[in-house]
């Protein structure tokens, strides 16, 4: 069993410690510091959150997505064909993203995440996975003035992001994670989604994980198991129905077991999580489980995010019978 995170991590520490990232971003927006100076701060903070995950004892890390303004524009700004518009709610959270608008053909013109991934890995004492927002979710959260149909938009994004996956693949990562929360809200699009995932992953050799969250996969299970991924991430907090869903067919992949609530401060008890783990092993053996929070941890204050990770590690130790 591998402990991991789903992606984001709080960018600033709790008060009264100074929020270096926040201050730097403010000064950058006022034109007081350069883009290079901001990048330098973002890298320091990235190093710090990698260190924090490693210290706590998480097995498979991310860079905490410190440089992501939000999960959509981090990619859209770097692809050709998009303009960036006003703020919109990120699913049912109180976090907002800027809506990209496709005004021309969406094209990949060069690596988007590779430099960040290289930096993060170089500073990480543990294996670190890159994460990308998938083409279906990108298209759902954007709008288009260019594409004749939504299908065209999704498939064009899939092709563009396939280039990004290939570029990441060349870095030989332990795993590449693709986030597709939007498919849970539009399950009737599953055949389009299947096509998008095939295009997206073509020619990629690294192990791949598809993460869903903020809902359940009823209605697209067990079909989701046919997709070209080695692991599927499911959210058992916002999607408790995933429990029943797993009864319907054997779970044939590795499972990203999202069991600690990434969106509430209440800290789950070790016993409570152990019981859930016990229950999930009726479907998936321990050695095919990634134990992780239900979503990215940026919905929480830093101190609580860290406590959730500590809890994951305690649960793993208790489950494997290793002294805490």
């Amino acid at each position, binding site marked *: 069993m591998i402990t991991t995170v789903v992606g984001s991590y*709080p*960018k*600033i520490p*709790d*008060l009264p410690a100074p*929020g270096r*990232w*926040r201050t730097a*971003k*403010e000064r950058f*927006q006022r034109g007081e510091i350069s883009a290079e100076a901001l990048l330098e701060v973002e890298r320091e903070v990235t190093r710090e959150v990698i260190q924090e995950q490693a210290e706590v004892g998480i097995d498979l890390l991310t860079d905490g997505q410190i440089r992501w*303004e*939000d999960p959509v524009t981090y990619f859209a700004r770097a692809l050709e064909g998009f303009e960036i518009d*006003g*703020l*919109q*709610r990120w699913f*049912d959270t*109180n*976090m*907002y*993203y*800027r809506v990209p608008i496709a005004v021309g053909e969406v094209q990949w013109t060069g690596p988007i995440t590779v430099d960040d991934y290289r930096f993060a890995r170089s500073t990480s004492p543990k294996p670190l996975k890159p994460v990308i927002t998938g083409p279906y979710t990108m298209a759902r959260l954007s709008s288009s003035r260019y594409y004749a149909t939504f299908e065209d938009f999704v498939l064009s994004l899939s092709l563009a992001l396939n280039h990004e996956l290939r570029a990441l693949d060349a870095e030989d990562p332990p795993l590449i994670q693709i986030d597709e929360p939007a498919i849970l809200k539009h399950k009737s699009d599953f055949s389009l989604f299947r096509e998008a995932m095939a295009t997206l992953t073509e020619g990629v050799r690294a192990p791949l994980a598809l993460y869903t969250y903020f809902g359940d996969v009823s209605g697209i299970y067990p079909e989701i198991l046919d997709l070209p991924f080695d692991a599927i991430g499911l959210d058992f907090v916002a999607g408790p129905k995933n429990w029943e869903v797993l009864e319907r067919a054997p779970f044939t992949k590795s499972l990203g077991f999202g069991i600690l609530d990434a969106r*509430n*401060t*209440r800290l789950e008890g070790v016993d409570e999580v152990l019981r859930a783990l016990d229950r999930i092993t009726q479907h998936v053996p321990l050695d095919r489980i990634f134990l992780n929070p239900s979503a990215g941890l*940026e*919905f*929480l*204050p*830093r*101190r*609580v995010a860290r406590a959730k990770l500590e809890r994951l590690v305690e649960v793993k130790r208790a489950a494997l019978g290793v002294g805490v």
Partner: protein
Amino acid sequence: MKGLPLFPTTTVGSFPKPPYLLEARRKYLRQQISKEELRHLEEQATREWIQRQEELGLDIFVDGEQYRGDMVAFFADEMEGFQIAGLVRSYGNRYYPKPVVTGPVGRKRPITVEWFRFAQQIASRPVKGMLTGPYTIAEWSFNEYYPTRRALVLELARAIREEAQDLVRAGARFVQIDEPAIHTRPEEDFELAREAMEIVTRDLGAYTITHVCYGDVAKIYPAMLRLPVNQIDLALANEDYALLEVFKKHPFTRDIGLGVIDVHSHRVETVEEVVAGIRRSLAVFEPKQVYISPDCGLKTRTIEETTAKLRVMVEAARIVRAQFA
């Protein structure tokens, strides 16, 4: 409404804090000044905003919320059952202090009534009572205590109801209950938000308003019209009045607080464009339904931008009003 002109002008709640007050709030957090010293400056800033509203010629005033930080954390701080969990990002580098419910929620004492009285005493026009709605307080807090969101929302609704009643007893003729989070989970939760609003406003004995912003209003239309309030206040300007198309499909049966000033832009609108916006809106609303306001609270603008924008708004309302005289 009686005592008000056609197209009454008002604002959504918050005004920017003057530099001396921002400095005082920082000092207070570092425990360098006392609560009394801070309070004194909050009163001074409130007086200044009442005076500015008099000069601008607005028809319905607000106290300007000079004593509030975040619209949810302010109520959480003043109520029982909450702590502040820490800072959470909303977008860009904007963070808000997110409360956490750790016990039964309720009022310890009136929360906004003293400020309402303070403002009303020195104002020549009616001052609105300004409350954050129960659904939004619940949605923008962590919940470690109540077994369901529903239980928390309804308990908060009872507390906000008491506050609204106290405001009316203190003389408020207008009570605004802001619900910017109301469309977070429309399919699942709209009925709950409506039920909570009903608890707050039932037989209140005042003209009630709710302000909704930040998201996909079209998703909760026309269901929104079932909210038991007299007026729904919405942001029209920042989307170039795109919502009017939505309202054409189903008649808008409440009064409308028509947001005609973009609060997220530094640019001061011209009188002509605001007049044009109001006129476009009259294709959808009856004149007597329409109250004129900015899109949202103005606290992120400077004092100069705020007064310049409001001057334009009042002038535009006057021009349109003159045609109906």
